[in-house]
């Protein structure tokens, strides 16, 4: 099998898996006072320090959560609620048109249920959010904005956003800035303090840790109203018994991925560039989406004119190649990607797209397998788009 869907999830690192198993064998609730509890708490706090150190944050800024979606929801809703509670005029949420649904749907929910006004910043043809657009938005409405949230790197087309520049604009207006960095950590340098953001989402299973565990890095001067109420864990912001084994494995994965980032990015980007070059040779009319330079090292995103992405996916899957159309809903009905639409693509181009994402287990032979299967699949998918059986 050729696995080119690392942006969906990537295999656990051996180090993380071993740390998980070793910790999961131990009993102990990190909130308990006895020896077993103290041991668990020590593991959690060591992990907090490791995550903080790897990502340029202070340990007290690390809030462990149940993963990326929860962290995004906590940042968007929690900061919105906390800011509005202090100043009732702050009911505006600023985001971008290319966010993941974990952010976009949380923002929509605030609009539908909390009366939030929503401003979605446009993107350019590469999918990039412009700091000037954010400045214009905040110059006009800054005193009514509760929170700004834009991603570090796009999960579909791989474009890396000018996060530091955006965060600086938000800081000028004194507005908290959250960034979903789920796709970025371990792929590109991510430093919480240096970036100037107030809140940052990271999750385990995109960087070699387990699924179902992640963190929100939250600056100490930014308040967030909890989504979950209960035992008061995690600065009272996120109640719930801590998943000690998951947190330990997550921390090992973050630390390892960040430590290896440079070497990893060079190796994977070389593989990716080879893939892109050979796809272009094999299918000359292909459209390469996203920023050609400022992009995630493992991401290759294409539109294949005249094809439907889900037909390509089916055909490649049948040949043992795992990739993605980049978007899926719970019913499994492919919708044209909101990201590509926001980048100015028409419906056909959006529906004709396919995402290949490489990762830490990727090999040249996997790229070879794609190149071997792709031209035939494109041919077939193109014929399928307008085919009728004789009758």
């Amino acid at each position: 099998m050729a696995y080119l869907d690392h942006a969906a999830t990537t295999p656990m690192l051996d180090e993380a898996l071993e740390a998980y198993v070793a910790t999961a064998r131990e009993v102990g609730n990190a909130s308990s006072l006895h020896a077993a509890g103290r041991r668990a708490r020590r593991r959690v706090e060591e992990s907090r320090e490791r995550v903080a150190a790897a990502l340029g944050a202070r340990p007290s800024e690390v809030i462990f959560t149940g993963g990326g979606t929860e962290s995004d929801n906590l940042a968007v809703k929690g900061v919105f609620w906390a800011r509005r509670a202090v100043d009732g005029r702050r009911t505006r949420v600023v985001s971008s048109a290319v966010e993941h649904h974990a952010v976009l749907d949380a923002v929509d929910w605030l609009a539908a249920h909390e009366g939030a006004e929503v401003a979605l910043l446009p993107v350019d043809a590469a999918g990039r959010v412009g700091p000037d657009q954010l400045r214009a938005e905040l110059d006009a409405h800054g005193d009514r904005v509760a929170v700004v949230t834009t991603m570090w790197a796009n999960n579909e087309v791989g474009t890396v956003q000018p996060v530091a520049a955006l965060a600086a604009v938000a800081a000028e207006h004194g507005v908290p800035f959250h960034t979903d960095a789920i796709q970025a950590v371990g792929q590109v340098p991510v430093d919480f303090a240096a970036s100037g953001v107030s809140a940052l989402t990271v999750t385990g299973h995109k960087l070699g840790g387990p699924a179902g565990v992640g963190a929100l890095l939250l600056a100490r001067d930014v308040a967030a109203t909890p989504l979950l109420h209960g035992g008061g864990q995690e600065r009272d912001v996120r109640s719930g018994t801590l998943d000690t084994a998951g947190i330990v494995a997550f921390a090992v994965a973050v630390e390892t991925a960040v430590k290896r980032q440079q070497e990893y990015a060079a190796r994977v980007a070389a593989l990716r560039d080879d893939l892109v070059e050979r796809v272009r040779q094999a299918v000359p009319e292909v459209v390469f989406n996203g920023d050609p330079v400022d992009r995630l090292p493992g991401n290759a995103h294409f539109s294949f004119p005249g094809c439907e992405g889900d037909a390509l996916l089916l055909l490649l899957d049948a040949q043992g190649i795992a990739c993605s159309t980049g978007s899926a809903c719970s019913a499994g009905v492919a919708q044209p990607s909101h990201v590509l639409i926001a980048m100015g693509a028409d419906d056909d181009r959006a529906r004709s797209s396919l995402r290949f994402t490489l990762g830490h287990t990727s090999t040249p032979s996997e790229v070879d397998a794609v190149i071997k299967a792709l031209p035939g699949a494109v041919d077939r998918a193109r014929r399928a788009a307008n085919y009728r059986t004789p009758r």
Partner: protein
Amino acid sequence: MRVLAAMSGGVDSAVAAARAVEAGHDVTGVHLALARNPQTYRTGARGCCTLEDSRDARRAADVIGIPFYVWDMADRFHADVVDDFVAEYAAGRTPNPCLRCNEKIKFAAVLDRAVALGFDAVVTGHHARLGPDGLLRRSVDLAKDQSYVLAVLTREQLDRSMFPLGDSTKAQVREEAARRGLAVADKPDSHDICFIADGDTRGFLAQRLGETPGDVVDVTTGAVVGTHAGAYAYTVGQRRGLHLDRPAPDGRPRYVLSITPKTNTVTVGPAEALEVSHVRADRPVWTGGPRPDASVECEVQLRAHGDVVPATVTVAADGLRAELRRPVRGVAAGQAIVAYRPDPAGDVVLGSATIAA
């Protein structure tokens, strides 16, 4: 062969897919998303087209161990089945949407896409037999037989179809599903029309066609005996829901005899006035082979799960005529007439046509 299994989320299509795998085929499962907004279709365990059905189908595919995808056929389904359904009623006819879905969606749009993607055939859980002789026959389970709604398929469509359940009864299919560990083994059968959420066909039509009050006329006296909110809401042979102002002079129940959209009139009369001995039909499809030269002695069925009547079917250039050996009540334009040749190995579908009058 590479085959595509259309999986509704019900027990039949799940077992059909499993049997296709067991027969050595390379099977891929596909669930057809037919609702533009899935929540507006039937929810719960009844019917098709819900998110839950999509999950049931995927779960079955996982148990069987085949790839599974959802194909969005909502636009095609609306244009070819739902809109057609409404237009047919508006024209005073009584359509069969399941038949239309087979003709236009499952064995057309889906089959076309499958063939183009390299599949050799589509496999479904319909209860009908399609043997090596290429003939379509009734299922061994006559109560569940679906050959009527498949009789609209052409030879070319049947050549690329597989119905692995025709030799089994529904009870056997359920038993086999349980044996295979398929959770849908006990799922209730779907009924009625999948795109009418509450089963209220009249309300569904009224929403789309509006209320257009008109007269209900008695065929014997010519008198107006009531009013209706829209002639489209009636079907030939219907007795209930007429809300007549005056009882018939003879005190016997009255039935809908015909619907005339032009004058927006519903004509009612006694049961015997419903009896029909000749049927004219158009758009014939000769499923069982080449078009017969002249007339054929056969049996005909005039609606889904309807009685079977011996008849002489005469082929005309633009359709066919059927002389029924005994009169039949409640023959509605828009329904299919399906001709069968009785056969001890399962009655053979000769062909079908759409009843015109």
